[in-house]
């Protein structure tokens, strides 16, 4: 396992730069997720690391070695492709053994290595089957085994689970984590699915539409402390309020037009946090308490009308229309420990939240 350093990377298609001045460090042995909307350049970044595309400027380091100009087949980096890219004329064993056969490794060693990796991905029964006879999930495992058998320093995964159904995807995610724990290889996992990234990754790098990295952090950091409204909106659901910042007697408040001012807790004071500037606050739907009656002990309160109720099974989503015509999402856990008050359409309700539940954002 080795780390990957990208330094001042530039790449453009048809003379428009999709990645410019990008710097990124993937720590060795990490399960690193590259997350971003479609077309943000995350797959391009992966293809640059693998060598399928050439960088226009910048350096790529694998450990301490500069691999910027190394041809694809000499990089100790392997890829799991989105459409698996299994060789249709070879069977499962031959597909997995491909990289070893190329390196002219003795047959008995190949057999041992391939058998053990095929066991690790639970395909023992299918070892001599043709690729056509496999299901989507099995093909995915073959692709994984084929890329892993060569003991790469870094494994690149390009939306590997995109074609699988939800249940299978959840299972494969767990298996991927287990596999990474055993093999200790550095994984770089490209996805547009925030759920996958939150599940598997040690670190997440979130890319925006301009091909820039917006934020890097652990899943919890990214979810709980987003640095911009883009991050807050991309990871999970949130309610964003725009308002004017007010700093008075050690209190930070956000004055939202036609709605009132809300108390905000600020962990550390940033340079941009000045009295009177425009700012945003992000309030996660699950951090809001919804009630018809009066509740004590909350720092903030707002009133609204229930516009719609969506039942999700484990939680219920309420869409509340506030006084300023803003629609707020609220999630209530359906834990059913005690009898709850009944909230129905068109009821006037109160929303409560603490000042610690809010993240204050510059943009």
């Amino acid at each position, binding site marked *: 396992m080795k780390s990957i350093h990208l330094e001042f990377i530039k790449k453009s298609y048809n003379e428009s730069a999709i990645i410019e001045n990008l710097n990124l460090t993937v720590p060795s042995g990490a399960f690193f997720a590259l997350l971003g909307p479609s077309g943000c350049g995350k797959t391009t970044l992966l293809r640059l690391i*693998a*060598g*399928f595309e050439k960088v226009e400027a910048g350096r790529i380091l694998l450990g301490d070695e500069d691999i910027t100009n190394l*041809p*694809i*087949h*000499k990089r100790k*980096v*392997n*890829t799991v*492709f989105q*459409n698996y*890219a*299994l*060789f*249709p*004329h070879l069977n499962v064993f031959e597909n997995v053994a*491909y*990289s070893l056969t*190329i*390196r002219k490794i003795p047959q008995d060693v190949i057999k041992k290595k391939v058998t053990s990796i095929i066991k690790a991905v639970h395909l023992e029964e299918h070892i001599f089957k*043709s*690729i*056509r006879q496999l299901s989507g999930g099995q093909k995915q495992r073959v692709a994984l085994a*084929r*890329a892993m058998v*060569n003991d790469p320093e870094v494994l690149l995964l390009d939306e590997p689970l995109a074609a699988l159904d939800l249940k299978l995807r959840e299972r494969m995610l767990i298996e991927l984590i287990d596999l990474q724990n055993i093999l200790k290889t550095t994984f770089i996992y490209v996805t547009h699915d925030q759920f996958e990234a939150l599940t598997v990754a040690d670190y997440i790098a979130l890319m925006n539409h301009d091909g820039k990295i917006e934020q890097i952090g652990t899943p919890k950091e990214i979810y709980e402390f987003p640095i911009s409204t883009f991050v807050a909106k991309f990871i999970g659901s949130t309610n964003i309020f725009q308002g004017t910042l007010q700093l008075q007697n050690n209190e930070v408040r956000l004055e939202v037009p036609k709605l009132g001012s809300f108390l905000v807790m600020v962990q550390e004071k940033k340079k941009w946090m000045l009295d009177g500037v425009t700012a945003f606050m992000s309030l996660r739907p699950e951090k809001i308490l919804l009630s018809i009656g009066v509740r004590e002990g909350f720092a903030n309160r707002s009133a609204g009308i229930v516009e719609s109720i969506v039942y999700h099974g484990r939680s219920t989503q309420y869409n509340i229309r506030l006084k300023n015509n803003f629609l707020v999402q609220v999630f209530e856990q359906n834990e059913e420990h005690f009898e709850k008050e009944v909230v129905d359409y068109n009821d006037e309700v109160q929303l409560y939240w603490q000042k610690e539940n809010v993240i204050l954002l510059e943009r």
Partner: protein
Amino acid sequence: MNIFKQCKQYFFEDLPFFFSMPAIVWEVIFFCIPIICIVGISFIKNWDVSAFSGITLFHYIKLFQPIYLKIIVRSFLLAIWTSFLCLMFGYPLAYYLACKASQSIRNILLFFLILPLWTNFLTLIYAWYFVLEKHGLINDILLSLGLISAPLVMLHSLFAISIVTFYCYLPFMILPIYVILEKLDRTLVDASQDLGANMRQTFLRIIFPLSIPGVLTGFLLVFVPAFGEFAIPLFIGGDKYMFTGSLIEHYFLIARNSSMGAAVTSLSCLLVLVVTLFLRWSIKKKFSYIEGRK
């Protein structure tokens, strides 16, 4: 009324079958029945007299005389040699067209590749006649450049025949290979290189094996007509070399011995069939995925 409805239902349930009927009927009337007749005729002593003259294996036995065997083997070798030449020259071009050429170059080259097919086959052969003849294009150029002092004799040789056959059938080799290579999933090439194979290994282990169906189609499209080729030996080869095609023509049209002609025809068909089946079988054994492709 009910029956009409049912017929209508059957019709729409199996539309492809109904629409293939004209072609099937055509094939049966103008291909299957004539072939059966030809095979039948080859066993009749003398078809060209009005009375039935009895059944015999005589024509086939006669065909195994060295003089006839030589003609059949010569045709066979010409067909194999032409197919081989077409493959050797056609594959790189097909590969270049499908994998390397830019869109505009590809279109231009494909246009020139297909252009000869718009021209009548005989016109093409005559054109070659004027290129190769004693006072033809090549000799004129070489003479005026002073590279040779006397015209080269190129016509009426096996070399000339194979050059012209190669020229005429080259597109039929290139096009099927091009189609297969063009459709080839590029991520397989990426994957192969990603797994440590260089371009040469990727070609030998991935690209070429996956293009075998195209090579097979091209081979058959060249081999089968080249085996029965009759116009090229006639115009380019003069009467110096007999080929199977010319032999068949000779028996049917000149010697008026239809039974003998039918025997040559049947034997050629059998030979082509055997080669085709052998190729299919040997490739199916090695590349079993081809058959199952849907």
